[in-house]
């Protein structure tokens, strides 16, 4: 029983971080139909910025917010400088550009920050709670992670559902031309979308590092699972990203806890294939409504 509860708790904590990263991917994909392969590298880079701040005696919170700001700016700059000039050409060009950025940013981080393991401390404890004689795999850090992603999800939901900016972002994502006719500056919104995705990706990057170690490729498994979660959710649905992330986190944890840790990747692909066989567009894809 203790084992099962802990497997579940682990899965939720893992899943929620996957969800955050998948959200970043979805934010860009739903408005541009571009899969940003550099998202993970952007997040990794901003986590190094946070670490640098902490090493210069800034508190965790300042470092956290600094990384988010950096993620926001890097996202906007990449869209303007790298992606925008490639628009209108072959779609493959943009895919290749984001793949190039993925590699280039990782190399840059290795040069600037070194490629050794660096510890990234947590603002709260990493010791599991104890309830009676149950040792829970729930730590203050994992509660912090869950709450932070919760804030991000609620914040994004409010932005999209309750604000004028969010309404125009959704409109631009669904129908760019009609939005322009209605006076929406779609190109500004694309930049903002990349910036926002950069920020959300940074949150995921820092959370997975918190209480652990970082090195230039520390995001690799999160990137892979984030992509799978985003596809499970339908690639253009924020809710889908969150649900996909949680499903994947829990499945990963079950596979690792009851079968073998080495089978986690295979388990993730089995889930992916099963979902795509049952619902080829992913669980929450909105492309159905569009065809009506």
């Amino acid at each position, binding site marked *: 029983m203790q084992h099962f509860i802990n497997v579940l708790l682990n899965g939720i904590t893992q899943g929620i971080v996957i969800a955050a990263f998948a959200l970043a991917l979805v934010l860009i994909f739903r408005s541009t139909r571009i899969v940003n392969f550099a998202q993970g590298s952007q997040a990794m880079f901003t986590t190094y910025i946070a670490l640098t701040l902490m090493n210069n005696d800034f508190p965790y919170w300042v470092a956290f917010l600094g990384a988010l700001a950096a993620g926001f700016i890097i996202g906007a700059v990449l869209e303007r400088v790298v992606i925008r000039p490639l628009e209108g050409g072959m779609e493959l060009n943009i895919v290749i550009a984001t793949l190039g950025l993925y590699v280039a940013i990782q190399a840059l981080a290795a040069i600037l920050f070194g490629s050794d393991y660096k510890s990234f401390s947590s603002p709260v404890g990493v010791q599991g709670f104890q309830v009676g004689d149950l040792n829970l795999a729930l730590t203050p850090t994992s509660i912090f992670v869950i709450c932070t992603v919760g804030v991000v999800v609620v914040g994004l939901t409010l932005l999209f559902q309750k604000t004028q900016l969010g309404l*125009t972002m959704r409109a631009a994502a*669904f129908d760019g031309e009609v939005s322009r006719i209605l006076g929406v500056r779609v190109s500004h919104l694309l930049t903002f979308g990349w910036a926002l995705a950069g920020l959300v990706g940074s949150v995921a990057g820092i959370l997975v590092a918190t209480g652990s170690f970082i090195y230039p490729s520390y995001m690799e498994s999160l990137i892979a699972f984030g992509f799978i979660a985003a596809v499970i959710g339908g690639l253009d649905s924020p809710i889908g990203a969150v649900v996909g992330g949680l499903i994947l986190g829990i499945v990963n944890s079950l596979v690792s806890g009851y079968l073998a840790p080495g089978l986690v990747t295979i388990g993730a692909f089995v889930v992916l294939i099963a979902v795509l066989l049952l619902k080829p567009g992913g669980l929450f894809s909105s492309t159905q409504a569009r065809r009506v």
Partner: protein
Amino acid sequence: MSVLEIKNLTTTYGPVKALDSVDVAVETGQITAVLGANGAGKTSLLRTVSGLVKPTAGTITLDGTDITGKPTESMVHRGMAHVPEGRGVIAELTIEENLRLGMRGAAKRPTDTPAPVRTLDDAYQLFPVLGDRRNAQAHTLSGGERQMLVIARALLARPTLLLLDEPSLGLAPRIVAQIFNLVRALVNDSGLTVLLVEQNARSALSIAHTGVVLNLGKVVVTESAEVLQNDATLRHSYLGF
């Protein structure tokens, strides 16, 4: 006086000349109907006017300002509202969200623009069916209801010039009559100016002041609607009724 003046406008898509030296003047407070068969260039005309397509030659003047080649996003603030071919409902958004997008366009309009529809409530009063379903996704609406939605959305931007691309498309004659009568009433009551593009010449001329016939990208006739309606030769040779 004309709100919109189109002079010598030419638009090409690669080798295809969709508009060939087109001249159209849209008089203030009137309905100007541009008529023509499939592929005549009607949609191209509206898309060029609202900046979605850049012309290869010619000028477009709105309220005395040259707007040729200006970005589409700026047209709403200049007082132009375009209801595109196929209506342009954003199907995934709710009816009210579609209307809010229209209202957003009014923010930069002078507050003294006469406008028949200023608030969401005005829109719901004009089209009660939209009010009843305000929180439903727009893809649940019928064709006629969608047409009402996009007209209301366009009016909420408080335009001086309304561009309508084939509002009758796919609608039952009764609904077409209802929508056309409404457009005419809006023009009579509020001083709105309309550039209406239609294949359905008979219905369009019944509410228009002026008719312009487009054939293979060229203007072949510009006449008052009355003359066009009553001249059997013109009707037979260009309008097919």
